[in-house]
Structure formats: structure tokens, C-alpha cells
């Protein structure tokens, strides 16, 4: 078992730990061991969280993949960003003095031998959040030399691609968010449905759009449409020129204003272990702080070293489906969100397609029996355990009434409204409903309320037994596999950069325990001179704007940030004229 990581641990990550992520050529992709075999040590799970690519704390040092394109030393790659201090090769690591001092001076970095690169705007993460923010700024006229994207990813949707793939959204499938949530286009026009209509020369998508959501399920784009469009926009705005590969270790205030962001470039790509980015603005979009296991499942995996029978939907678990193709089996599914729906669909599809005899027992901790909510003006649909909702929050949080309402709330009032409209939910899609109905009628799908007390290996060595207490009494459920679809997110302090931020910059938690941001996504209490620290994405959930962890939410944050930067005089505000002319450039794919 990998040791639990403390916020200041230093260790080298093995290639493959970012399974599916920046992968060294020739290094085999890490796969789960065949059933019955224990996962090799050093697989990357730590005691209370699952490490999946891009999720949680990437470690200090990336292995430089042989022959892979990695960031050149900043001075060579970044003409406008100047390296101020040339450090001797091999030196340049953090010193105890730096680690302990909240506000740094240039001298302190010089003494540590850490070179300094100057760039006004740094975004940390390099996922969809960094991408849409960079896109906004480029469209507002900020030249690429003024922006650096510090990331362990090679392209913006790398983590998203991984997460959706393992959680059963293959390339030909459609994602959850709607037609006008498009990270490659700040206007959301033309929407993805129009793009697919144009490409496939069929009116079907538009007709569908016209019928949603009442007479048809929400139209949502193909995964491949989304990825293709991001690739195209990346090229157009010169995203790769702004991206610097590496893992960010911390962001600290600079004496005199602004910040230092410490980057650990891939091993062998830089003469020093660390490089400091000195900037007036820092934007943090580091995605999920980490994933957590349900405690009973975590306990089972640790105690029995069994990583085969109990799997998390966010980790590769193809072996479950493959084994079920060879023999009948029972799967216990836990969770009531979209990932549970997807996994369920995969099990049903395989059952149908390969004529399998898979049985599914679906345990909901919170079992929704019907429409629920405090009154007729606040009732969400639900049945058979599920709460139904098109997107992860009610649609109006991205622009309508609920957005306006939440924007005014603080403290307890805010937490209350979050509680009311949050909770696990899934879209009510017709196909899923049909499959579940058939499953219930055919006796191979059963949904139930229950709390799993513990999980143990079955006495005959065949599979696992869940000890469930529910409204209907206690029950022992034997199954071949348990798929955990709960996707619990870890506390923000599990992410090293965020933990450091809470400790040293004055950032604090919102009513939901994440980072408290202003309405314009500035991290409260972290301003430094004329410098500003922004954050967007899942780490800011619980703020004045609820839909943060979505493409559209990240764009809303990007807009607020860009507008705030314009107010501070750092970039132009995108008014109707500029917006229109830039839209034409986008439409004709004209590089900017």
C-alpha cells in the first residue's frame, strides 16, 4: 500500500501511476491484475483515496517520457517570459525556509537556486477550466506570451477523456451536458447540435432539440464532437505554446505583490528541480481534489488486498464486463448518479448483446421513492431510488432564477439552498428507463434501499458478501463484483496545492467546505498588492455560483475572471463589437 501522502511529502511518482495519462512510450499501461490476483504494490491508491489521472495530487516529479515532448527550459520556450535567475544545474529545490515562510522574496528563491520566470498570468491545472479561461483571455486580446498554463496534461480534455471512458461513456457515446455547453466556443453559438447537423447533413438533431426536454431526452453532443472541437480551438488560440509541462507544488505570495507559483518540471527537462513563475495573477483550475472510496469498500480492499472484486467506476474495471461475458454472475451496484446509470446501461447492453445472465442488485443509500422537495414550487421528480434531473443542478443555475438567487446568499442560507437542489441525481433517459423496467420484470434487476455495514470475501471463496441493513431488515448479499459508483470527492486538503493555500495564503473554506471565492472567482482573502488569485471548477463548489464543475460553469467563471481583469485594466473588456468580430474569426477558424 502506498503510504498516505502528507501535504509536504516528497516522492517520485512511478510512470503509470497516472494510469491513462502522460504515459511514457514503452511503459505498459497499468491494468488491474486478473481476478483473484492482488494489485501490485505501488499501484497508486493511497489509504483513503483513489488516484486516478489528473485527479488528486499529482506528485512532485513527473518522469520525463523518453522522446516525449516536454517543456523546454522556460527561457528557450517562452520568449516573453524572462528567466531572471540562472540557477546552477542540479540545484534549485525548495528549502525549509521557503516551505515555512508564507510570503517570499526574490532573494529567498535566489538563495535556493530556483530560477524565476516572469509572466503576468498563470493558470494551474491545464484541464477544461484552464482551457476555457485561456480561450476567453485570448479572445479578449491577451497575447499568448502573457499567459502560461502549468499542467501535467498534454491536452485539456485528457482527464475528462479518462474519467468518461472508464465510467462507461465510450467515444461514440453522448456526454451529459447540453448542446450549447461548448468549451471551444465562448458564445455557445452555433451549438453542438447545429455543428452535428451541418456535419452529418441531417435535420434529426434539430428536430430533437426542438422536442427536448419534454417530448425527448435532452440532446447532448457526442464525446468525439466535443474533443474534436477543443483540438481545433486549441490550435486557433495557440494553446500549446502557452502550456508548460510539470506539476505545480505551491503558490505563495510575493513580497511586494503578486505570487510565485512553484513548478516541478518533468525530470531531466530542466536544470533545476523547481522553477518559480512570478506573476501578478494566478488562476487555479486543478479539478477534483481526489476521489474517495466508500469506507466499507476501502476497508475491504485494504484488509483483503483484493482490488478485483470491488472496483470504483472511476478506475479501469473492464475486467468485470469481460468476466461476465464468460460466465453468469451477480453485480452489486452502489450509487444513484449518472455514473451508476451508465454502468447499469453497460451491464444491460452487454446482457442483451451477448445473451448473458448477469444479475444486478442496486443498493441506494438514499432511496428516492417519488417526487420530492419542500413544496409544489420546489419538487424534483424521482422513483425507484433515483432523483431525476437533466444536469447536475437545475438548469437555471447557469443563468436563470437560481443563479440570481444564489448570488445573493451567504453562509447558512447558501448552504441550505445547495442542500435543497443538490444531492445525487441522474437524467431520466428513456432508454435507461426501458432497460430497468425490463430488468425488474425479468427478475434480473433489483433496486433496494440499504446501508452496507461491511463487505467480506464469500466463505466459498467465490466473490464477496455485503452485509446490508435497510428499511426491509438485514440482508446478506453475495455477488461476484461490487461496482462503487458513488464517486465521492475527497476533501480539498487532499490536494497539495490547495492544502498549502489554506495554510499559507489566507484562503478559507465556504459553507460546503471548498474554497470560498468572490462572485468574480477571486479567492477571498488572498489578494496581494495588485495581485489576484482566482479559482474555478470543483474546488469552488459551494460559492455564489453553483454550477462550477461543468463546461458551462467553467466558462461562466472564465467570463467573470476576464471581466474582473478588464476592470483592473489588464485586458480589454469584450463588448458587443469585439465579441461579434471575434465570433467571425472563430467561425472562419482564423488563428488569433
Amino acid at each position: 500500500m502506498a503510504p498516505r501522502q502528507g501535504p509536504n511529502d516528497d516522492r517520485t511518482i512511478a510512470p503509470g501511476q497516472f494510469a491513462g495519462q502522460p504515459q511514457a512510450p514503452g511503459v505498459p499501461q497499468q491494468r488491474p491484475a486478473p481476478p483473484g490476483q492482488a494489485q501490485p504494490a505501488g499501484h497508486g491508491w493511497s489509504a483513503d483515496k483513489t488516484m486516478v489521472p489528473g485527479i488528486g495530487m499529482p506528485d512532485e516529479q513527473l518522469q520525463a517520457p523518453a522522446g516525449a515532448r516536454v517543456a523546454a527550459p522556460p527561457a528557450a520556450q517562452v520568449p516573453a517570459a524572462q528567466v531572471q535567475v540562472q540557477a546552477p544545474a542540479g540545484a534549485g529545490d525548495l528549502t525549509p525556509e521557503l516551505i515555512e515562510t508564507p510570503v517570499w522574496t526574490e532573494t529567498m528563491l535566489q538563495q535556493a537556486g530556483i530560477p524565476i520566470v516572469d509572466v503576468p498570468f498563470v493558470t494551474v491545472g491545464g484541464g477544461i477550466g484552464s482551457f476555457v479561461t485561456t480561450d476567453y483571455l485570448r479572445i479578449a486580446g491577451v497575447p499568448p506570451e502573457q499567459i502560461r498554463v502549468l499542467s501535467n496534461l498534454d491536452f485539456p480534455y485528457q482527464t475528462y477523456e479518462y474519467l468518461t471512458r472508464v465510467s462507461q461513456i465510450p467515444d461514440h457515446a453522448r456526454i451529459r451536458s447540453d448542446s450549447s455547453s461548448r468549451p471551444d466556443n465562448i458564445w455557445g453559438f452555433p451549438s453542438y447540435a447545429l455543428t452535428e447537423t451541418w456535419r452529418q447533413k441531417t435535420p434529426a438533431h434539430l428536430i430533437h432539440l426542438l422536442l427536448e426536454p419534454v417530448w425527448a431526452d435532452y440532446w447532448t453532443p457526442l464525446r468525439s464532437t466535443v474533443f474534436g472541437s477543443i483540438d481545433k480551438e486549441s490550435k486557433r488560440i495557440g494553446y500549446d505554446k502557452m502550456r508548460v509541462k510539470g506539476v505545480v507544488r505551491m503558490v505563495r505570495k510575493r513580497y511586494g505583490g503578486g505570487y510565485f507559483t512553484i513548478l516541478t518540471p518533468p525530470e531531466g527537462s530542466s536544470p533545476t528541480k523547481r522553477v518559480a513563475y512570478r506573476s501578478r495573477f494566478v488562476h487555479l483550475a486543478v479539478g477534483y481534489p481526489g476521489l474517495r472510496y466508500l469506507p466499507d469498500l476501502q476497508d475491504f480492499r485494504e484488509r483483503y488486498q483484493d482490488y478485483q472484486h470491488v472496483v470504483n467506476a472511476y478506475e479501469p474495471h473492464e475486467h468485470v464486463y469481460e468476466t461476465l461475458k464468460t460466465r453468469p454472475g451477480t453485480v452489486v451496484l452502489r450509487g444513484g448518479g449518472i455514473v451508476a446509470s451508465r454502468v447499469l446501461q453497460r451491464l444491460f447492453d452487454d446482457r442483451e448483446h451477448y445473451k448473458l445472465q448477469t444479475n444486478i442488485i442496486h443498493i441506494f443509500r438514499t432511496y428516492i421513492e417519488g417526487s420530492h422537495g419542500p413544496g409544489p414550487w420546489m419538487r424534483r421528480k424521482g422513483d425507484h431510488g433515483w432523483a431525476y434531473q437533466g444536469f447536475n443542478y437545475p438548469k437555471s443555475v447557469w443563468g436563470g432564477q437560481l443563479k440570481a438567487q444564489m448570488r445573493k446568499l451567504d453562509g447558512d442560507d447558501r448552504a441550505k439552498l445547495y442542500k435543497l437542489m443538490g444531492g445525487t441525481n441522474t437524467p431520466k433517459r428513456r432508454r435507461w428507463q426501458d432497460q430497468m423496467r425490463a430488468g425488474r420484470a425479468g427478475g434480473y434487476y433489483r433496486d433496494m434501499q440499504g446501508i452496507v455495514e461491511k463487505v467480506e470475501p464469500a466463505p466459498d471463496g467465490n466473490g464477496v458478501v455485503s452485509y446490508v441493513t435497510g428499511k426491509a431488515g438485514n440482508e446478506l448479499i453475495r455477488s461476484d463484483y461490487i461496482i462503487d459508483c458513488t464517486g465521492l470527492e475527497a476533501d480539498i486538503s487532499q490536494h497539495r496545492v490547495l492544502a498549502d493555500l489554506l495554510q499559507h495564503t489566507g484562503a478559507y473554506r465556504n459553507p460546503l467546505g471548498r474554497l470560498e471565492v468572490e462572485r468574480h472567482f477571486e479567492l477571498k482573502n488572498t489578494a496581494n498588492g495588485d495581485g489576484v488569485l482566482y479559482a474555478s471548477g470543483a474546488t469552488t463548489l459551494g460559492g455564489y455560483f453553483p454550477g462550477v464543475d461543468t463546461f458551462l460553469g467553467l466558462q461562466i467563471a472564465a467570463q467573470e475572471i476576464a471581466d474582473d481583469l478588464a476592470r483592473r485594466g489588464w485586458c480589454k473588456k469584450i463588448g458587443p463589437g469585439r465579441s461579434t468580430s471575434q465570433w467571425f474569426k472563430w467561425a472562419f477558424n482564423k488563428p488569433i
Partner: protein
Amino acid sequence: MVPTLTGRIQTRIVLLATVGSVLTLLVTPLLPIHAPLGTAYKTTFIILATVIVLGIVWEFIYHFLMQWRWEKDWPTNFGLITLVPEGLVVWLLLNAKLVPGIHGKVPLAAFLIDFLVVWIGVWLVANGPMRVPFLRWRFHGGRLA
């Protein structure tokens, strides 16, 4: 765009006054109205103004109805379907001679063409091109000011 009450009203007024006016200008000469063009324009612009004014009342009703929707949204097709009750009310008022400034009878065909062209045009603009100049509009519940 998922509207707020003020956003609805602002969007309705601005779009009908701009896109609606342009379309009214273009479509009026083509309408089967047996009257001089000046009279025809007067009639169609009064109809447009009626849709705007009554629309403010309608928006309150829509906002009220929206409260029963968990998502507090207003699907795209609702924006199209609502042309039926709105069109019907304007037509009934015209027939009852309750629209100030219009005294003669407006032929049904002329009314239908005028009303549909303006409505569908505005609906199309609201569901896409509007976002091009007004980048913040869709995130502000349709508010322009």
C-alpha cells in the same frame, strides 16, 4: 437562455423592437392588405407594439408557470408554442376593435403571416445569434441592462 423575470421582459422588448421592427418593415409590403402602404405599416407596427405591451403581462404569467418547473427553465420549444395563445389574444382584440389605432378589419392571412414571421424570427435570434454580440446575456437570465 434560462430567463429571469426581468431578463424575459428586457429580451422581449429589445428583440421585438429591433429584430421585430426590421422583419415588420420587410414583410409588410408583401402582406395581402388592400390599403395604402402607409396604412399597412401603421397597422403592422401597432400589432407589433401590442405584442410588446401584452407580452409584458404574458411574461409575468410565464414566470409564474415556470415556478412549477423544478429546473426553473423555459425550454426552447415553449418559446415557440406560446405563439399560439399570444397570437390568439391579439387576433381576438383586433376583431373586437380593442386595439387603439386600428379601425378597419385586418385580413386573417395578413395577420398570420405578419405575426408568424415576426415571432419565428425573434425566436430564432433569441436561440442563438443573440449570444454573438451579447456575450453575457445568456448567463444573466436574458438581462441586457
